């Protein structure tokens, strides 16, 4: 359900009647908009199922800024990686301790600027962590699906590929040919058939 436009600072209702969602904040017991946009209230899913008990959770209220175009260029400009965000990144440098990456997609949306992140050697995979070598997991230029585990230090987000679905999704061989995954740790060149080692993401 949507309604008229609101501006930052505009009160939307008492704080006890709603659960604050995105784009709003609470001030003086009031839910107050913090964006220009449309008010969206969604009834909590649990109440509809359990036929309104007295302790039902109130509806969630949030303010959504409508995007300019279908490609969501406008709204993704304020996109930042957060803990548990799934990101796509390109490997820029590797050394024995970590792979440095540039994050360019956060939660399925392209961000305006690249964010720098690192995948440390202990975050590459879940098992046999001691035997992981960065050089047999990533190469510069690989496109990697990863998860943010920490906002990290002043310059790097800390990422992890320690899950079956995470790891290299696209890679070229040393000769520059595209490769396809053959198992969880190897990829094969489509032209020469050379097999290279990677931490491969499960394709499906």
């Amino acid at each position, binding site marked *: 359900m949507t309604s008229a*436009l609101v*501006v*930052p*600072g*505009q*009160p939307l209702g008492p704080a006890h009647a709603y659960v604050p969602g995105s*784009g709003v*904040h609470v*001030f003086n017991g009031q839910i*107050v908009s*913090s*964006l*220009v*946009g*449309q008010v969206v209230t969604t009834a909590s899913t649990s109440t509809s199922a359990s036929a309104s008990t007295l302790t039902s959770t109130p509806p969630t209220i949030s303010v959504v*800024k*409508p*995007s*300019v175009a279908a490609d969501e260029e*406008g*709204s993704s*400009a*304020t996109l*930042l990686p957060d803990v548990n965000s799934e990101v796509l990144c390109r490997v820029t440098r590797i050394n024995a301790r970590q792979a440095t990456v540039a994050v360019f997609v956060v939660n399925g949306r392209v961000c*305006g*600027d*690249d*964010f*720098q992140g690192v995948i440390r050697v202990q975050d590459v995979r879940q098992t046999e962590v001691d035997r992981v070598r960065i050089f047999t997991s990533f190469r510069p230029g690989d496109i990697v699906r990863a998860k943010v585990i920490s*906002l990290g*230090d*002043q*310059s790097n*987000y800390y990422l992890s590929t320690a899950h079956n679905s995470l790891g290299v999704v696209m890679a070229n061989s040393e000769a520059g040919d595209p490769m396809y995954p053959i198992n969880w740790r190897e990829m094969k060149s489509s032209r020469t058939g050379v097999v290279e080692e990677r931490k491969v993401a499960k394709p499906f």
Partner: protein
Amino acid sequence: MASRAPDRRRNNPPSHGTTPPVFLSTSAGDINPVQAPSRPPDEIRKIFLRTGLVSSVTGSSFLEIAPLKLSVSVLGPRPLPRTSTTPFAAQAILTTEVKFAPFASTVRRGYVRDSSERDLGSRLYQALVGAIRRELYPKSRIEVVVTILDSEDEGDEVNTVCIEEGKTVEPRFWDVGRSERALGVVLAGCITAASAALADAGIEMFDLVSGGVASVFVDGSEVKGKAKEGAGPGRRYVRDPSIAPLDEGAPLATCVLGYMAARDEISELWISGRLGTKSGTAEMDELVDEAVAAARSSRGVLNEAAKERIQFIVDKAQSADPSAVGGKDTEMTG
């Protein structure tokens, strides 16, 4: 060949000759059409404010108040530069920059920011920093860049006030508040426009900040009438004062502030001038109240301007919906 070869060493004029451009009326008559003398002192000048004019940045706005024209660009939130020396920033780092274009005033401005521009920048920072929900944007920076394209002349120490063409006019007062008023109007405009640009960028804020200016003058007319004997000379408050001097009354003080109307809080305050304190802060309070009233008036414009572009998008989306049902090719062409 009959025609001579052109002289390649020089810039040649067009072969068919030119006519000099003729501009209509540059006479002194309409140099100052802006300050309509009929404007009541409690009314601010008309504001033109529009958002989303610069497509390459996250948010932008353009503001016009009489001769003042400025554009604001908001960049970010974007990652901190790799060379940044700041340690882990749990909140977004806001930077503000105010720059007069070289052609913005009668005296040419340099390309390097001078002290008054840096000062305006830090005031704008002060006005905005509290309003932005910076904790939502860790490890990032938000840049607000203001370019002033045209401004009322600051009156570089020269009081052209007292001089009329060809004859010397006895000055009634030295217009000391001139540069304060000029800077105040610019700062208030910067604050209002920057809020609109931040809203346009979709950066979450606690409240919009609007700028307001008010000046207090000695009320010359009331002194003559002696209406309030004992209460000292009368005072006249003018909201959104123009640089052009008023007919009567020496300026006493100017107040500029950034005001969050929904929270009734002042985020930035600058008073310059001279206010008596015999009755405590009463004189200051009156001036601040006038400036707050001016800020409230500009908040109305700010609200509408912030909504305008979003409303356009919403309307477009709604009008596009039925056509999507009708046929797909309309979408394809769009």
